[in-house]
């Protein structure tokens, strides 16, 4: 397997060369309404570098075959590349063992897997599950469903108006009834980086299991699940420049071993008779049916790509963009930033006086600028700020200060239309 086609093609040199990186993303070369595309909706999904597209094409042109079953050459090759990628992901998040790496469709399916498999076997009537006020709906609804099934209660860690969780309130919510804490690492609406290491420690002192939603952290932060010591960690490929349709559940081996399967089917069994089915070993017990091999390989390719650029360099670049965008937008008359946590990354949410985000989004779109407007699947956050919606610009490895300038100029246009 070729390990790093990206470097062979382009060889990014330090210091951070954003223009070389932009060349890796074919989608960025297009014009929208006759203007160069400025893509600032990375928190919704990030664009894909050529190396990911090539990996998918190569897989379907040369390798496509089902894994873990055929004796023929293609099946063996597909299985080997698939399992090599599992090892790559283990290394990427610093897990101890590949048996702890389960491939799923995305963060949402991952959280559902944990809520059903771990949740159903550990939560009983009267127990409590703790989430925060800034969760994405995908880290609220699976737990609400669990609580409904079990007669348990969902408790919510409140946040302040800067969009920071109130740790003292969190401490009070950790009681003998608490069975699970499920927390977002980085907020998709506010950009807040939560102090998850500290919060995991606090829960563990009381013997409570902690799930971390890493969907927004994956493209920006190097993560060590061993250092965090979380019990589960979930993330999606598509937010970190990989293909859609693939995500990862990390779970501590001793927990995964004891959990019942989430779905039944092929690949997750050792033997089936009508009298009794013996489940497969980890991680296959949780991977019923044919996995999304091509996209898993695409995820592997993007891990190589990001590690080659280097997470410290990415973090530095994105911190610069965030600071620049925050400074520029703050000077625009009538703009209020939503989410002003001390520790944040990647996202600037804002509202403009007298202009609904939807109108702003439409006008900005005509300038070729893609931003997100709406509730960002975080309606409780909108309720906190008493807003129907916000506009959100979210940054990635290929964005530039010039693009921030274009966004600010387009907001002037919005004001002109609405003056």
């Amino acid at each position, binding site marked *: 397997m070729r390990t790093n086609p990206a470097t062979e093609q382009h060889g990014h040199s330090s210091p951070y060369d954003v223009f070389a990186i932009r060349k890796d993303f074919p989608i960025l070369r297009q014009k929208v309404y006759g203007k160069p595309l400025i893509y600032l909706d990375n928190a919704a999904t990030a664009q894909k570098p050529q190396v990911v597209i090539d990996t998918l094409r190569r897989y379907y042109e040369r390798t496509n075959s089902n894994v873990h079953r055929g004796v023929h050459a293609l099946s063996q090759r597909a299985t080997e590349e698939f399992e090599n990628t599992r090892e790559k992901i283990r290394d990427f998040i610093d897990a101890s063992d590949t048996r702890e790496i389960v491939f799923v469709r995305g963060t949402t399916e991952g959280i559902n897997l944990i809520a059903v498999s771990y949740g159903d076997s550990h939560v009983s009537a009267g127990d409590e599950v703790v989430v925060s006020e800034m969760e994405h709906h995908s880290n609220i609804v699976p737990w609400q469903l669990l609580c409904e099934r079990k007669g348990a209660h969902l408790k919510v860690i409140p946040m302040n108006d800067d969009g920071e969780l109130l740790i003292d309130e969190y401490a009070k919510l950790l009681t003998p009834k608490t069975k699970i804490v499920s927390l977002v690492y980085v907020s998709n609406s506010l950009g807040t980086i939560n102090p998850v290491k500290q919060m995991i420690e606090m829960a563990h002192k009381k013997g409570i299991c902690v799930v971390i939603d890493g969907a927004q952290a994956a493209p920006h932060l190097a993560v060590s699940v061993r250092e965090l010591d979380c019990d589960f960690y979930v993330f999606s490929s598509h937010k970190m420049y990989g293909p859609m349709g693939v995500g990862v559940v990390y779970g501590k081996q001793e927990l995964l071993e004891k959990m019942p399967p989430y779905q039944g089917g092929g690949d997750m069994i050792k033997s089936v008779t009508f009298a009794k089915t013996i489940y497969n070993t980890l991680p296959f017990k949780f991977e019923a049916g044919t996995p999304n091999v091509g996209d898993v390989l695409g995820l592997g390719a993007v891990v190589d790509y990001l590690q080659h650029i280097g997470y410290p360099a990415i973090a530095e670049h994105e911190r610069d963009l965030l600071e620049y965008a925050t400074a520029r937008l703050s000077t625009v008359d009538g703009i209020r930033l939503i989410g002003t946590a001390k520790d944040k990354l990647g996202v600037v949410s804002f509202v403009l006086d*007298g*202009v*609904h*985000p*939807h*109108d702003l989004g*439409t*006008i900005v779109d*005509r300038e070729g600028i893609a931003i997100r*407007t*709406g*509730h960002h699947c975080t*309606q409780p956050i*909108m309720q906190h700020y008493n*807003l*129907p*919606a916000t506009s959100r610009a979210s940054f990635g490895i290929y964005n530039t200060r010039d693009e921030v300038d274009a966004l600010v100029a387009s907001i002037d*246009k919005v004001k002109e*239309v*609405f003056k």
Partner: protein
Amino acid sequence: MDELRELYQEMILDHHKNPRNFHGMDAASHAAEGYNPLCGDKVTVYLQLDRDTIKDISFEGSGCAICTASTSVMTELLQGKTLSEAEALFGRFRALVTSDPGEKPDQAGLGKLVIFAGVREYPIRIKCATLPWHTMQAALEDKSETVSTE
């Protein structure tokens, strides 16, 4: 910019900034709520009927310029109309905003609703313009569930 002016016409901006009939209605005989959660448009439409004539119509809520202006203009136009006139106007309005943007809109009987022809160029915004009309219809049909056009 011209294209945007097509969408955000002066009259639309005026109705957005100064919505007409923008208040609740104690004497309402019918009311319904419309809500498009993805974009956040929310309107409550109130009607007072005198047999089959709309004696009064008003609204409350918050939304984008297109939604607010569409609701405001609708309440202006429907004052004093019969139910069948209101239904016919809704039909003509729906035909307008969903017609081919390449063709000249059929203006017959539309009155000032024609200012919404620009919405045709922005398919994602059609739902903003039609939300109040669907909500008005739901109110007349005494539907209790919230209306959505998403």
